């Protein structure tokens, strides 16, 4: 592997990692506050991508599609939390199993509506070209993905540590009953945070549709990656999601180039080692 391919794989890893962060940040946000392993996260990703695809097809506007993917899935998230998850609040197995059942429904509904052919979301013209630097030529859209990842990370960090809602969320992570007793309706907070996590999945779906493509089964593939990222980084930790995403992105990129036969093994083996060393992930904490 010469320096140029190494540079390209490095960029591939970082850009893919950025997409993974967008995906995993929503997952870890929901886990952090509500202790729900949302196994329908991949389904929400897929629905977001397809919603964006449809809006893009109708309007031809990528940014409108972006809003539709985020807002549409956020509304779906509001409904899921209110109707399905609230009745089984705080009972971990029923919560997990509900989201698992939901994952199947979402995947199958997407198949029924959008069909089985893979779809790729066209990149907007402004991001369509490529950039030359340091002797490498690299697609602009992929670099834009890094920007999206950074903006999301900064936004979530600001939300959590510099806003009132963030303070309430952090308090809710520590002691939801106490927050409730202070006169804050924690149920509403749960509801909004779930919707925010879902919206991030929806946005990731649109970017993922442009980055990879949308196909039946993309939901479980992405869920798998999100779970690995979150287990490595530590469930509930924002910084952990950043570290985990970059790690998984880089491993995926270099393994694809070097040992394609063992692609998933190279992903899971480090995860097992990290779990053996730190059972709650690199930056996670026990409950």
């Amino acid at each position, binding site marked *: 592997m010469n320096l140029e391919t190494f540079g390209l794989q490095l960029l591939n890893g970082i850009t893919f990692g950025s997409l993974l962060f967008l995906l995993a940040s929503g997952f870890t946000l929901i886990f952090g506050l509500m202790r729900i392993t949302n196994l329908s996260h991949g389904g929400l990703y897929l629905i977001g991508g397809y919603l964006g695809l449809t809006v893009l097809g109708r309007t031809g506007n990528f940014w409108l599609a972006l809003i539709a993917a985020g807002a549409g899935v956020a509304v779906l998230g509001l409904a899921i939390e209110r109707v399905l998850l609230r009745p089984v609040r705080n009972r971990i197995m029923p919560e997990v199993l509900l989201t698992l059942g939901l*994952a199947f429904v979402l995947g199958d509904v997407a198949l029924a509506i959008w069909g089985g052919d893979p779809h790729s979301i066209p990149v907007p013209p402004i991001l369509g070209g490529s950039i030359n630097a340091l002797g490498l030529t690299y697609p602009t859209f992929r670099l834009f993905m890094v920007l999206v990842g950074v903006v999301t990370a900064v936004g979530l960090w600001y939300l959590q540590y510099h806003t009132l809602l963030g303070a309430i969320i952090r308090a809710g992570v520590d002691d939801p009953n106490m927050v409730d007793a202070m006169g804050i309706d924690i149920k509403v907070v749960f509801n909004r945070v779930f919707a925010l996590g879902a919206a991030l999945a929806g946005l990731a779906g649109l970017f993922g549709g442009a980055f990879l493509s949308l196909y039946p089964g993309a939901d479980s593939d992405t869920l798998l990656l999100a779970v690995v990222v979150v287990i490595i980084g530590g469930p509930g930790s924002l910084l952990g999601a950043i570290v985990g995403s970059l790690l998984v992105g880089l491993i995926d990129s270099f393994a694809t180039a070097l040992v394609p036969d063992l692609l998933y093994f190279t992903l*899971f083996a480090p995860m097992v080692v990290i779990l053996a060393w730190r059972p*709650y992930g690199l930056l996670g904490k026990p409950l």
Partner: protein
Amino acid sequence: MRLVTARPTWPVIALTVVVLIVGLALPYLATSFYVSVVTQVLVFGLLAMSIDVLGGYLGLMPLGQAGVMGVAAYVIAYLISKAHWSWPPAVAMALAATLLVALVFGLLAVRTSGIFFVMITLAEGMLVWGLAYRWSSVTGAENGIRGISRPEFATVYWQYYYFVLVAFAVCAVLLGLLVRSPFGLVLKGIRDSESRMRTLGYNVTLHKLLAFLASGLFAGIAGVLYAWYNQFISPSAINITASTEAVLMVVLGGPGTLLGPVLGAGVIVFIKNILSAYVARWPTIMGLIFIGVVLFAQEGILGALRRTQVRTRSGRVQLHGEKAWDTLGTSSGSSPL
């Protein structure tokens, strides 16, 4: 320690006898198609019972059990069809490999509790699937491995049915003894309150690990039976969908009962094999059944049946396992003694 055992009633005994007779005479009563379907029910029933050891008795549903089953299925497939081993050492090796994987992930899982435990089982299933899907020189990737020949005395469908029936019966008895033993009662104690059992001096970690190994062993046996049933194994048989279907069998039938998961396996296998010809959207139906059971019928089929039995017999029957996984989550760690 027979604290939780209900004395069987006459209808239950009569029903058991009928089931036994029908089970033994099935190849004389039904066509080869239905005998095959029932064979499948027994294989998945065993898998579902292996899930129930953790999900119903320990209170933590493993989400990657089809992957555990897959270890045994792939090892025996490889040894028989590619390395041309005879079947007894191949079976021994398949089960040993499954136990090894269960040991590794068990050691990781028992260091955590609650939802982290569940996530590690998810990772376990994904790891096996990932290897099966990608390591094409050994597993044949998506094409799978074919030509997994059955033992010479069980090659025809009805012979294989009896073979599976005997294996299932032996495993069911062993599992029944296991969950009724003091060991099984400790597992239930951990399910209801981990901190209480720890305070009482039980080695919670060791019990969890042994439960993990026992669950893995029986899943491995199911894997061997599955590999021989189809004489073919591919990644799609052991992916997360397969793991989920197996969990659905447990949840639908009634966790923490052993018999319930077998009933659940019966329902799901029959729906898949018979109704799926008429119903196009199987994943949606499966998802909706899942959601419906979790929201409205957490005791499952068997729990509902038992409840009616209690009503008619004025409370003499002690229920066991009716709230298997419902109680969890609020209890782990923080509950008072």
